[in-house]
């Protein structure tokens, strides 16, 4: 087990895992829509970017996030650049929180996430609806924001575990 922990392959794999998950989710648009549950959708990519840019920004580069946004736009079929812009706004908020926070606190992060996703979803709706005249369902955006906020603690546990493994491997 200890030899596995010291494996260079595992170290490289773990360090790239957040990026792999990010690109895999934008290509798949991961939100469990195939379950066909009414009024259920959440944005996994927002959670992923929020956590990693807040807690360990070295593992998720801004350039990768920019390209992930471009891919997301093409897959969903909205004008190219909108998701990149929203993801980078999310990064700006996390960078700001990181700068003003001395000791990270889960509850504060969670509350900040709510305001951040409401902000970026509002920006997206404004750009799509008012600039590009593409009709969007406001209820869906609101539901999506709500579930994204509610799911943060679950993914926080998973990402935090992963982050600890990465830190352990890097320090090792």
């Amino acid at each position: 087990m200890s030899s596995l922990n010291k494996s260079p392959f595992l170290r490289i794999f773990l360090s790239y895992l957040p990026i792999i998950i990010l690109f895999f989710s934008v290509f798949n648009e991961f939100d469990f829509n195939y379950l066909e549950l009414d009024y259920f959708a959440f944005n996994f990519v927002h959670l992923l970017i929020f956590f990693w840019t807040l807690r360990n920004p070295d593992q998720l580069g801004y350039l990768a996030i920019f390209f992930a946004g471009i891919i997301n736009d093409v897959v969903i079929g909205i004008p190219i650049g909108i998701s990149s812009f929203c993801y980078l706004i999310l990064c700006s908020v996390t960078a700001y929180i990181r700068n003003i926070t001395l000791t990270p606190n889960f509850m504060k992060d969670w509350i900040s996430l709510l305001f951040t996703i409401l902000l970026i979803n509002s920006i997206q709706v404004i750009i799509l609806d008012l600039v590009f005249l593409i009709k969007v369902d406001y209820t869906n955006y609101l539901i999506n924001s709500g579930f994204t906020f509610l799911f943060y603690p679950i993914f926080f546990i998973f990402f935090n575990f992963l982050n600890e493994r990465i830190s352990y491997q890097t320090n090792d």
Partner: protein
Amino acid sequence: MAAGRDDFVIAIRSAFLKKKDKQKFSLLTLIILSIFVIVLSNLNFKAIQFVKLGINEVIYRSSHIASIPENKLKEITSKFKSHMDLYESHQKELIKIENSDQLKLQNEFLTAENEKLRELLDESINSEEIFARVLIDKDSPYLKSVVLNKGTKDKVKIGMAVIDDVYLVGQIIEVNYTNSRALLLSDLNSKIPSVLEPDDIQVVVSGTGSNFGTIEHTQIDFKDSFNNKEIIVYSSGLGGLFKPGIPIGKIDDSSNGQINFFSDFTQLNYVKIVSYKFGGEK
């Protein structure tokens, strides 16, 4: 007070301009770049269109490959659901089969008669069909669309009808070299000129973002005529893109004026992309 404002400015400046060890670009640079991309993607320069087509081609193919595990999961969920509903659907099918032979003969006669009458009026409708496979079927809450594996190289054009069996499911809104995107009828931006039969009411069928449609733009108070009867919605052909009479969905007592589409948009695997030529059109 001034110190507090200074701290805020420093934090903001640091967030936007400072680069971490492994970051190659600052946030501000990338935000400006993304605004530049948004503006560029809406300009109709040929060079930009080519770049856009290239990006679409690569990403659609990659997304199709990356979606394989999710599609398998979707297939298993669907099979399980269909297995659980087997008895109920079998009973429904039995009732349908009882009437189908009779209806088939009636339909053949009416089709032949209709064709003869159209020839007399010089209003013949010819169609060209292209069979396509659904590459990406993302049931996104924002835009209801599918990506098909046929593009300009197969003579697919914007505005062509997308048909599943005999039912209208959407229209082509974006065409690349080897693939295209079809906007489904359930999307909020979809508007199809239609006719309600048997009352012959002209309407526009609009998507809702959910798995049903609604009726828009009609002056007639049609809802009273819905009582106790089944209304079938067909394309009216008024837009000049689709032929009249393609079945779209139905409104019955239980649907509260909503249109239940005939085709299940979550189960689309193969569809037909159809273009129509009316009368003496070349």
